[in-house]
C-alpha cells in the first residue's frame, strides 16, 4: 500500500500552512507502514473530537468515529473494550481534551488503557476564530480575553505523567521525521500513549519563529525514569517563550492496562434462557 491510497474525496479545508497537514501526512505514512508490517488497516479506528484537528478523520480513508467536542476518549475507550484487537488512535485539540473533556483525559491515563492520543496543540481555538485555550501563555490576547489572559497555561505532559500515562512524547509540526517516529512508537506502545504535538496555527497563533528558535531534540535521555521525564517536562512550561523546548520521547514504561485486565467474558455455549431461569429461581 502507498500513503496516497489513504486519501478521501473530502475537500481539505485547513488554512494553507496549517500544522495539521504535517500530522495528516505523518499519520498517512505511519498507517501505510503499519499495514505493510502486519497491522491491517481495517483494524485501525480513528476517533476525533470537534475542532480543526478533527477534520483529519474526513481526510483519511480509514474506519473513523467523528465524535463531539471533548469526547474523543470515552468513545475510544469503549471501542477498545468492545474489541481489543482494534488499534484505536485518538486525535484531539487542546481546547477539546484539556478544557471540555479534561476529565476523560485524566481517566484514560489513570486507566492506562491501550490507546494512542495525539494532541493537536495549537494553543488557540481556531474554528471559533481565536480564543485562548488551556495551553495559551499568560497574557494571550484572544477574542474572549482582549486584555490578555490572567491564567497560567497547563503543562499537558506533566499532567499525563502524574495521571498514569505510560508513553509521553512531544513533536512539532515542523519536524515530520520525528513526528512519524513518535506516532509509530506511540501506536506500538501497549498502554496509554500521549503525543503532544506543537502544531502551528497560521491564522490565530503563529509560533513558527519561536518554536524554530527554541525546539531541540532529546538525545540519550532515560525515558524509563519518572524523575528524569519529570525534569525534562518541567524544563518548559508553555509560558516562557525564551526557554529551550524539548522534543522527543520523554517517558515510556510498562504497566498494567485497563483493557488487559478488563474481564472479557468469552461465553460461547451460554444458554441464556437457562441462566435467566436460574436468576428468577433465586428471586423466589
Amino acid at each position, binding site marked *: 500500500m502507498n500513503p496516497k491510497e489513504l486519501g*478521501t*474525496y*473530502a475537500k481539505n479545508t485547513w488554512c494553507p500552512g496549517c500544522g495539521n497537514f504535517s500530522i495528516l501526512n505523518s499519520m498517512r505514512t505511519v498507517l501505510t507502514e503499519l499495514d505493510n508490517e502486519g497491522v*491491517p488497516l*481495517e*483494524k485501525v*479506528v480513528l*476517533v476525533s473530537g*470537534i475542532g480543526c484537528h478533527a*477534520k483529519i*478523520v*474526513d481526510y483519511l*480513508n*480509514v*474506519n*473513523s*468515529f*467523528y*465524535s*463531539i467536542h471533548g*469526547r474523543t*476518549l*470515552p*468513545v*475510544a*475507550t*469503549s*471501542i477498545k*473494550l*468492545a*474489541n481489543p*484487537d*482494534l488499534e484505536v488512535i485518538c486525535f484531539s485539540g487542546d481546547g477539546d481534551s484539556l478544557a471540555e473533556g479534561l*476529565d*476523560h483525559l485524566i*481517566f484514560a491515563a489513570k486507566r492506562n488503557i491501550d490507546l494512542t492520543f495525539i494532541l493537536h496543540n495549537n494553543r488557540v481555538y481556531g474554528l471559533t476564530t481565536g480564543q485562548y485555550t488551556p495551553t495559551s501563555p499568560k497574557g494571550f490576547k484572544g477574542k474572549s480575553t482582549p486584555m490578555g489572559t490572567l491564567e497560567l497555561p497547563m503543562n499537558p505532559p506533566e499532567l499525563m505523567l502524574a495521571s498514569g500515562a505510560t508513553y509521553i512524547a512531544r513533536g512539532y509540526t515542523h519536524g515530520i521525521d520525528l513526528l512519524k517516529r513518535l506516532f509509530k512508537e506511540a501506536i506500538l506502545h501497549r498502554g496509554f500513549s500521549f503525543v503532544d504535538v506543537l502544531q502551528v496555527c497560521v491564522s490565530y497563533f503563529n509560533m513558527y519563529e519561536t518554536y524554530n528558535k527554541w525546539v531541540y531534540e532529546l538525545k540519550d535521555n532515560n525515558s524509563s525514569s519518572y524523575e528524569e521525564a519529570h525534569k525534562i517536562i518541567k524544563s518548559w512550561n508553555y509560558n516562557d517563550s525564551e526557554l529551550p523546548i524539548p522534543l522527543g520521547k520523554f517517558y515510556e514504561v510498562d504497566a498494567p492496562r485497563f483493557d488487559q485486565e*478488563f*474481564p*472479557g*467474558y*468469552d*461465553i460461547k455455549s*451460554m444458554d*441464556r*434462557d437457562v*441462566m*435467566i431461569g436460574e*436468576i*428468577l*429461581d*433465586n*428471586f*423466589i
Partner: protein
Amino acid sequence: MDSFSTLIGGIAGDGINEAGVTVGRLFSHLGYRIHMYYDYPSLIRGGHNFSIVRASNKKIGAYKDMMDVIIALNQDTIEKHKHRLKEDSFVIYDSDRIRIDGQKTKSCGLPISQILKDEDAPPIMRNSCIIGGLCRVAGIRWQILEMVMKKHIPKQIELNLRVAQRGYESAVESFKIDKLDYPIYPILTGNQAIGLGLIKAGIKAYIAYPMTPSSSLLDFMARNASNFGLSVVHPENEIAVMLMAQGFAYAGQKAAVGTSGGGFCLMTEGLSMAGMAELPVVILMGQRTGPSTGLPTYTAQGDLHFVLNAGQGEFPRFVVSPGDAEEAYYWAGMALNMAWKYQIPAIILADKSVCEGLYSFCPKDADELQEETPAFWNGNGKYNRYMYSETGVSPLAFPPTKGQVVKVDSYAHDEYGITTEDPKITSSMNDKRFAKERAMTSYLENFETVKIYGSGKIALLTWGSNKGACIEVAKKFGLTVIHVLVLSPFPAKKLIEALKSIERVIDVECNSTGQLARLAACHDVKINEKILKYDGRPFSIEDLDVKLSEVIA
C-alpha cells in the same frame, strides 16, 4: 380480605429494605402476589426507613395506606405510622426499646435486645428476630421462614436462624394467614426486571454512573456480568457513560446505560449525537422528584417532556414507560430491539416506584421476548454506513471489515460518512432519519402500545407506575383505564381508538402540570379533569380513591 398489608420500619442500617423483601417472600410462599413500596430518606445511617409489603390473591402494583400489621424496630415507627392502624390491626415491636402505651390495637412485644444479647448476635439481626415473631403471630409455619432465610441470607445463617426462632417462640399465634393455592412467583424490582429484559434481548455492555433510582440496575448487571458475558463499566461521569455506549455500538456490541434526571442532563449532548450518527443506545431514565437534586430517593413523573425533547436538533427516538415488573422486562428488551432495528436512542422512562418497587413477577403475564437481529450489511460492493433506503435504515457493518471502511459522524454527513454542508444532502439525510420514525410507527401498530383495562364511560388516562393504583381503583368505580406505554412515537391512533366510547377523561399523573395530558392534547385528545400528585410519593389506593371520589362527585 382482598389484601394484607404489613409495614416494617426502623432506622437506615436496620436492613428495612431486605426485611421487607423477606416478608414479601413469606407471603409469596403462601401463594400471594406481592407489591412492596420502600420509603427511605437520602442518608446511610439513621433517619426513618419503612417498607410496606402488600399481599393479595390478585396481581397488584400499589400499596394501601392502612396496615394490617406494623412491625416496629424503633419508637419512630409507632409514632409516624399510628394513623395507619385500623381497629383490628396488629403491632409487633421490640419491647426492650419501644413503649406502645395508649395504643388500643392488639400487639405483641418481643424482648429483642435481650434475645440478641443472649445469642451474642449483632444488631442487624434484630430484623430476623422480629420477622420470626411475625411468623408466629400470623400463623406462618416456621419451616417457611427457615427455607426463605436459608436461601437468601448468605452470612451467619445458623445464628440468624437461632435469633429468628427465639423471636418465633416469644410470640403467640394471634391470627392465621391462609395459604392460597397459587403458584409461587419470584419477586423482583423493576430494575431487576429491566436487567433481565435487556439480557434476554442480547445486551452486551452496561455503562452507568451511580444515581438513585437507577443504581440498583448497575449493581444487578455488575453482579451478573460473568454469567452473561457482559462488559460493565462505571466511568468518570454520565457524559462518558453516554459516549461509551456509542463506542460499543460502533464496534457492534449492544449497550445500555442507566441514570436519573441529573445524569440524563449530562447525557443530552451524547443523545443528540446518537440521533445524528444513528447509533443505537438504550437509556434507563429513572425519574425522581425534581427539579435539581429535589428528593433524591422519592418518585415523580416530571421528566416526560424533557425526555421527549432532550438533545439539540430533531431526531427520532423510542420512549416507553413500563408500569410494573412484567412490562419492565418486556419493554426493556423491546427498547433494545427497537434501538438496533432503527439505529436510534431508545429510552425506558421509569421512576423510583417502578425501579425500586418490588413486584411478583409472573412470566406468563409478560409478552414473549426475543432477541432480534438488526439489518446487517450483505457484503456486496462498497460499504456506505449511511446508505439511503426506503425505511431510512442503513445496513450495519463494524470494524474490522476487510477491505471496507466504517465511518460514523456527528456532523451532517453523506452516505459514506464524510462531513458535508451541502444543503441537499443535509435535508435528504434528515428525511432519511425521519423515514425511520415512520417505519417504526407502522411497526409498532402490531404491539399493545396503549393498554386498556376495564370498561366504563369515564376513563383514567395514565402512564408508568400509576398503572397498579389506577386499575384497582377504577374497578371499584367501574371506570376504564387507558395506560399509555409507548410515548414516542406517540400512539395517537391507538389512543383515539381507545377513547372512542369514552365520555369523560380524567388524567392521573405524578407531576404538577399534567405532562401526558399536554402530550395527548397535541393529538386533539380532550382531557376533562386531572388528578396530579407531586409530593414524591406514589398514589396509594386510598389516595386515588379519595381524589377520584371528589372529581367524579
